[in-house]
């Protein structure tokens, strides 16, 4: 009986399901090609240089397992197009907007460059859409210089909450001259950079490959990678010079992923450098991506990653107050020194007081020396003399020798 009811219910539901079937290219595996079209003002038999994709998302669904490169509400409904591989490197450019009569809601676009073995949807290489921000005309655009022999999948969709279900996408491909890709065209094969020393980075022939995570704030159709390991914790400054570099993006992690993007910067003027500060932990791998709009013959840039400036922090060893009181009775204070950056080696810690706005050491015997080459270190300073409870003392830590790097902390001695 139950089976009969279920069967009857299924029969009732089936026609409706058939009507509401998703489009054939709802999933990446069903991706269709953009279609050629003609026009009344074209010579007979000739088609337009661009190809079109006319989309109705009413019955389209989202894509399980495909990263939504524009945020969690992006690509709530999608369809897929495929740009077949070509024997030469090409500039692939896709644009999308609402059709005639449509709303001003911006469509979502993502471009996936296939791996050498076939198409992929694990990482989008270029994304644009509603989450990027409103413009005076509602449209989205992605482009990429795609290596020869690579398929491209294009995800076209709309964010959740958008009323418009239709959109029109266009594809334009332009064949590019054969040029060998530069070193670092593929992220995982990025040459290592030495921190502190500059290096020329050729950009000629750069492309986008399947390892390039999209970063809509700083888009570029071609990229070149470099990697470096941070020798110490601190804020490193990446500087790129040369007009051919249009964007600079920093990633951190074992390999560059969209999740590991830390910061990016777009070229702000024709001739100036791109500068990007990035906070790194000691030992972290920094992936530096240079984006270029036109990696023509001779295009290159110079990259230098500077170590962070030296910094010192001073704190009492924990637990702070108890240690202070106890140690004061024994005539000692434990000081935790934290150093950041380069060239902080010998640390001298002095107990003193402020006299007329200037620090004055109490006694040479209150001075302790330590070696702190990045990270934290606890040093003990013997407190002697007439230090009375309730009086104030200043701990000063500085690099041994004459150096402006110094940090101070005021302590109140207790009983």
């Amino acid at each position: 009986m139950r089976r009969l009811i279920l069967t009857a219910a299924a029969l009732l539901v089936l026609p409706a399901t058939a009507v509401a079937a998703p489009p054939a290219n709802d999933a990446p595996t069903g991706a269709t090609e953009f279609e050629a079209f003609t026009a009344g003002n074209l010579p007979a038999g000739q088609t337009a240089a661009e190809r079109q994709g006319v989309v109705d998302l009413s019955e389209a669904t989202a894509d399980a397992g495909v990263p939504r490169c524009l945020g969690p509400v992006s690509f709530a409904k999608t369809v897929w197009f495929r740009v077949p591989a070509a024997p030469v490197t090409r500039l692939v450019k896709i644009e999308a907007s609402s059709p005639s009569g449509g709303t001003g809601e911006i469509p979502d676009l993502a471009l996936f460059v296939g791996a050498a073995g076939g198409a992929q949807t694990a990482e989008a290489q270029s994304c644009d859409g509603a989450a990027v921000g409103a413009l005076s005309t509602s449209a989205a655009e992605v482009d990429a210089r795609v290596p020869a022999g690579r398929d491209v999948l294009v995800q076209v969709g709309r964010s959740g909450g958008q009323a418009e279900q239709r959109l029109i996408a266009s594809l334009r491909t332009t064949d590019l001259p054969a040029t060998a890709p530069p070193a670092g065209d593929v992220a995982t094969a990025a040459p290592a950079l030495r921190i502190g020393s500059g290096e020329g980075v050729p950009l000629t022939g750069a492309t986008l490959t399947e390892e390039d995570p999209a970063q809509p704030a700083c888009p570029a159709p071609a990229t070149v990678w470099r990697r470096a390991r941070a020798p110490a914790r601190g804020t490193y400054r990446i500087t790129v010079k040369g007009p051919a570099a249009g964007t600079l993006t920093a990633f951190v992690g074992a390999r560059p992923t969209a999740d590991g993007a830390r910061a990016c910067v777009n070229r702000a003027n024709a001739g100036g450098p791109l500068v990007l500060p990035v906070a790194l932990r000691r030992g972290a791998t920094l992936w530096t991506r240079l984006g270029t709009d036109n990696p023509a013959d001779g295009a290159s840039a110079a990259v230098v990653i500077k170590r962070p400036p030296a910094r010192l922090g001073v704190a009492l060893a924990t637990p702070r107050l108890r240690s202070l009181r106890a140690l004061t009775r024994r005539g000692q204070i434990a000081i935790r020194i934290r150093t950041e950056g380069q060239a902080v080696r010998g640390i001298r810690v002095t107990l003193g007081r402020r006299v007329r706005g200037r620090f004055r050491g109490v006694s040479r015997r209150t001075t302790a020396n330590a070696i702190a080459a990045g990270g934290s270190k606890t040093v003990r300073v013997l407190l002697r003399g007439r230090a009375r409870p309730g009086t104030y003392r200043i701990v000063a830590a500085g690099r041994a020798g004459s150096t402006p790097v110094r940090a101070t902390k005021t302590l109140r001695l207790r009983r």
Partner: protein
Amino acid sequence: MASIPPPRILTRRRLLVHGTAVGAGLAFVPSAWGRLITQDATVGPGFFADGVASGEPAANAVTFWSRLTTERAVSGARLVVATDEGLTNTVATTVVPTRRAIDGSLKARVGGLKPDTLYYYAWQSSDGVSPIGRTKTAKPADSAAGLRMAFSSCQDFPVGFFNGHTEAATLGPLDLYLLLGDYQYEYENTETRSDAFPTVDLKSFRDRHKIYRADKALRELHRVQPVVHIWDDHEVEDNYTENNPRPSDLQRAAGYRVSFEWMPRMQFPREQFRIYNRWQHGRMADVIMLDQRQYRTGDLDGQPRQLVGRAQLDFLKARLKASPSTWKLVANQVMIAPLLVGVGGVGQEVNQDQWDGYDSERNELLDFIAAEQISNVVFLTGDIHTYMSNEVPQRPGAAGTYKSVATEYIGGSITSSGLPLPAESVNAANPWIKTFNGADHGYAQIDLSAAEAVVTYRVSDIQQEAAPSRTLSRWRQPVNTNTPVLDAGTRAFRSGPESPADSASESAPNAALRRRRRRWERFARRDVERREREGAAPRRRRRGKGGR
């Protein structure tokens, strides 16, 4: 290069609107979005090769336009608006973002301005400064002051020089300049070369607009006069409709989208390509703009024949009825007065592409105007490349009897070739047509006062660059009448179907016009070559045009 002094910022409007996150999908969402870096709009690289423009003037706001030429996919520019030409008395600055998705176009609508006031403006990138533009806000809602406007249509680049624009730019600050369609033509120029590109997709439409804006006269007009624009068929394809002929979805969307990219016109959020709209200029005039291309139906598609569609027709009727203004100016693409050609002694409509092909809507509109006794409705029309001053008859009788319920002024064409019909025979078959001239080219001025509307047709020799203009005829329409009256001293008709000069422009271009056509060809050839080498070679940096 002009330089902008440091702006004294009185108001600052951030126009960057971030997308709104609404709802979440059900599918598994990997964390790629977690590192979506957001950035505010900043001034970026680029220069302003395509000039500046302003439009949609209201009493307190104006839309400003320019375009950044840059290779960068992301850039931006600062707009500076001031009350003086030196841009020292700054009243507004804003940073406007642009991206490759909109071809570097820059647009900002700046509010908080004073009515009936001249403003000067410029755009500033990190590499350059645009030419300084001039614009004017509309008169306040309670103003009874007179207005001066001008209008034109149909500018075919290789056919002749845009001398009408040259003069219109020198008229002094107009209250409004109306571009009534066929702002660009989609043809490949078969008269001169076969490799000139037809406009069918985004890139070809954008390249075509670049060619047009390279015209000095058009650029200057945009620089100094506030404009509104309505498109006609050639912004997409000749005489297209929904179905006959139906352009491809991309050609149509590209035509509309690129028009929005290149015009100082803001989008409606709920309908991104809507252009029908209304602008009030004091108590003197209401300017109602129509779209007679986007909503056409009835050509072989089984739907009722519609030129403007129900929603737009209701909008027009509502605006006409509610308008507090003396003059109701309707910016109108195609001719609304009937155009009959005598065949066997019987007048027959010859052009089904204009209102003649859409009797049902025309009758509904004109019956409404008559029934509601709405006075001083004036249609300003383009499309037909012919100067005409018409009464607009409500359901004219077969015996030539009619009642005029409005007037229509058709401002010739900037360059496009006119109708080769004998003027006298046109008037005989169409007694409501008071003048007919398809031979001359130029634009029209309209001066509005509480007593009358005065329309002046200005023409020039389009074969000669910057040739001086002369008055073809002037028409006066006293308030509360629906009849254009020829001004003393000007002629309504000229003899012959076409002037010798006009014929010459078609068959035997002079040296100047040949140069212009060669320029067109060069642009076209460059476009083809650029397509072939796109991205392959470094672009030479342009110098001396507002940037490096």
